[in-house]
């Protein structure tokens, strides 16, 4: 009997909580937001950080002139970094490696994993272009010694060389290595390494801020109904369902 009442009471409490979820109207919400002050300089810095990290060098230069925001990095280095990134994206890996070495010879000397991935990408490009003999020679000369130094490199090398074994590579288990996404993956790895070598964060700050916004909204959803931003690209406040 008493247990029954406890359960009933708890159910009542839960119901009460659900009902008591606070509702915030659009007016209230906008008023609250208006009270938050954001400095223009901070906004500009975030935009500059985004442009620099993503490598929009012309835009960054223009933005610097128009807004007077100084980038925290020499803009000339962005051009170099972008040239490397572009070279990988176009499949000119050898060219990319030479450019990285000109930029800072330490990067590939102290980053065996990145070096291996670039060489692996070079091998993939050779295979893509049907240069089978050259590919085999390159794998033996450049990649096999790295595989001896590191077990996981060896496994990746085996996976890559397997491309040679299939007639129809587009339909084989390791076919994804030939995808553009593989180039992009390698390009972004080089990009990150160059940024780190320049003591620069490898990711822009804006995405983190937006991630935090989404997380905060999710937290708030449990306690209140309020005008929510559902579409980040428009940042429109949408009325809460009542």
């Amino acid at each position, binding site marked *: 009997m008493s247990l029954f009442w406890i359960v009933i009471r708890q159910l009542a409490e839960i119901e009460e909580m659900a009902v008591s979820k606070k509702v915030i109207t659009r007016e209230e919400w906008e008023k609250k937001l208006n009270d938050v002050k954001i400095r223009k300089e901070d906004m500009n810095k975030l935009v500059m950080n985004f442009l620099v990290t993503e490598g929009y060098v012309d835009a960054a230069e223009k933005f610097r002139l128009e807004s007077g925001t100084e980038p925290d990095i020499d803009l000339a280095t962005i051009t170099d970094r972008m040239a490397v990134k572009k070279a990988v994206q176009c499949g000119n890996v050898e060219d990319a*490696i*030479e450019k990285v*070495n000109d930029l*800072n*010879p*330490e990067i*590939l*000397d*102290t*980053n*065996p*994993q990145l*070096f291996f991935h670039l060489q692996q990408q070079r091998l993939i490009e050779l295979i893509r272009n049907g240069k089978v003999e050259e590919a085999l020679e390159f*794998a*033996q*000369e*450049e990649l*096999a*010694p790295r*595989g*001896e*130094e590191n*077990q996981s490199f*060896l*496994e990746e*090398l*085996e996976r890559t060389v397997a491309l040679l074994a299939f007639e129809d590579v587009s339909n084989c288990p390791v076919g994804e290595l030939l995808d553009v996404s593989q180039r992009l993956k390698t390009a972004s790895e080089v990009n990150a390494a160059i940024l*780190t070598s320049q*003591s620069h964060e490898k990711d822009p700050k804006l995405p983190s801020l937006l991630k935090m916004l989404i997380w905060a909204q999710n937290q708030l959803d449990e306690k209140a109904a309020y005008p929510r931003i559902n579409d980040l690209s428009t940042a429109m406040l949408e009325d809460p369902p009542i």
Partner: protein
Amino acid sequence: MPTSASASPSATASASASSIAIAAGRNHSDLHARLISSDGEVQLKALRELKNRIIGNRTKKLLYIKLGLVPAVADIVASKAETIADHESSLLVQSAAVLGSFACGFDVGVRAVLDAGVFPYLFRLLSHPDEKVVDAGARSLRMIYQSKLAPKYDFLQDKNMDFLVSLLNCENENVTGLGASIIIHSCKSVAEQRALCRAGVLKKLISLLDGSLSQRDASLESLAAIIKNNVEAVSKFVESESTRALSSVIELTKDRYPRTRLLACICLIVIRNTSPCYLQDIGIKTKLVYLLLELHDDPGQVGDEASFAFSSLIAEKEDLQKLAFEANAIDKLYNHLQKGVLHPKRFQGILLALADLCSKLENCRSKFLSLKALNLVTNALNHDSSDVRAAACICLRSVSRSIKNLCAGHFMNEMIVFPLVQLLDDPCTSVQVAALSALGNIVIDFTTHRSAFVQCGGMKQLVQLTKSMDSTVRSNALRALRNLVFLAEKVCKEGIFLELTASSLASLVSDPEPFVQEQALGLIRNLVDGCMNSVEFIFSEDRIILDAVGRQLRNASKAEIGKQGMYVLNNVARGNELHKEAVMHQLIPQTDNGMQSFMIKFLQSNDGQLRTAAVWTVVNLTFPSSPGAFDRLVRLSNAGVVSQIESMANDPCLDVKLRVRTALGQFRTFGIGST
């Protein structure tokens, strides 16, 4: 992965090495010719080609070093270091980059660059007007200073210190980085640490903690070098600018870059280990334990180094070992060990960390054994790397300190003992020493297996190693033998004694190294312990051992030697009249030239155990039922021993007090002594 699959690429690799050699041999004369060409453009192209071939490629570095290309590149730097023409600048940039790459993380390369005599020229590049040349020169020098082979930088010379400070004050990050690398490489002594503090380097480094990523890392590492084991420097650091420096370092343990986190942890550990008065709260201790365990997850160098930092945090510190145990350190380290092929450095580090964890706490050892980690460690005894083999032995030594498991015979099996005995023959001394120390523990409980150990040649090996040129090997071999004869049956003792011979045992007692003497005396003490027959060992070959022991006791410099020697005499003094008289002969020599007996010195020693051993010997010599006891007591009394013992009735050490009481009781039965 199937072995056949991994075997094929390595076969192609060796084939490829030879094909590279042929191809490179062909290219080499060409490349070399271009490097020494009189045409700068040709040289520049050759340098770039060489650079792009060797960066990231250890195999090719080695190849081109063997083919003698380093001196050709060094010549370019040497001949152009003073020039400032534009195209010469690019020659300098490229050649410095090539030299830096040869030296990067590769000692053979560092040696080749240093041998080429280019080191001073690289320093000259630092004052070049072209910033790119400065960058390239600083980078190359930094690579060289990251190796042990780099020449030591003498901070104690004023002009060197001024130069270093100018490097640290430079705007160029590569140059400040070089300054930090020099400190990390060369700052070892207290005098050097003091000189650096005096020159304001500490302050400068603290300011670099707010700098860029590379500056922060460089600063953390060099700070650790300057304050390590230097209480004065630590307090200077901690108390600088109202403790801001310390909180910056603590803050950096939360940095997003794993390397920065590791270096910040190492810096805090250095502070703690140097001045135990800082960083004592449980919060920071626990945090360090968790942070370092987490850093093991990094797949690269940081993960490899994390276990060494972890070891330095917990070594010899029971409280931290307990915290680490509670943080599941043993499981976590064991999980890493299980991950298949590990880099030798990481393998070594984890084994040593486990060794430190199991060095004091029984619950750590039980946990270790319950995980079946022992199999992984015994497999490591056969590892290719000598560092890993030695670390595996050290780990076994720690775990085998568990009396409970020793008694259960958990370590006495072929899987462990055979490989350990084999390691006694290891070409590497550090492995031999480590294997001896592990065996030393394991042989203690040999109740049923002693003969197996002897049969597999273990005992003969140990005896052989007592003749090693290396004193640590001798000492460890003696320690193992000492434990082997501990409470052993007579047959076993005889076997060892025959193998060892009285004369070599006597000469080990007189070894030039005190710690060897101590182990030799300890071995003799265990040898003559037990049944009456055992005492006879010491009388063979015209009492050569007994005389050596007596000689050592008369000259004993360390209490530990006196203690072991006295216990030898004490064990002999339990024997028959002949034995007792022989001991008397050592205690009070016939030709008394007025010298005080060492007995008085030992009885007055600060070491309670030494006093115990000395009094105990007197008790054994004056046992009332033995015929010559009265005569001996008179002689001891004349030598001042009796009155000395009488004065010790209220000795602070309980053990001593007990024996003194027995001795005084025996004196009274002969009517000697006051009341």
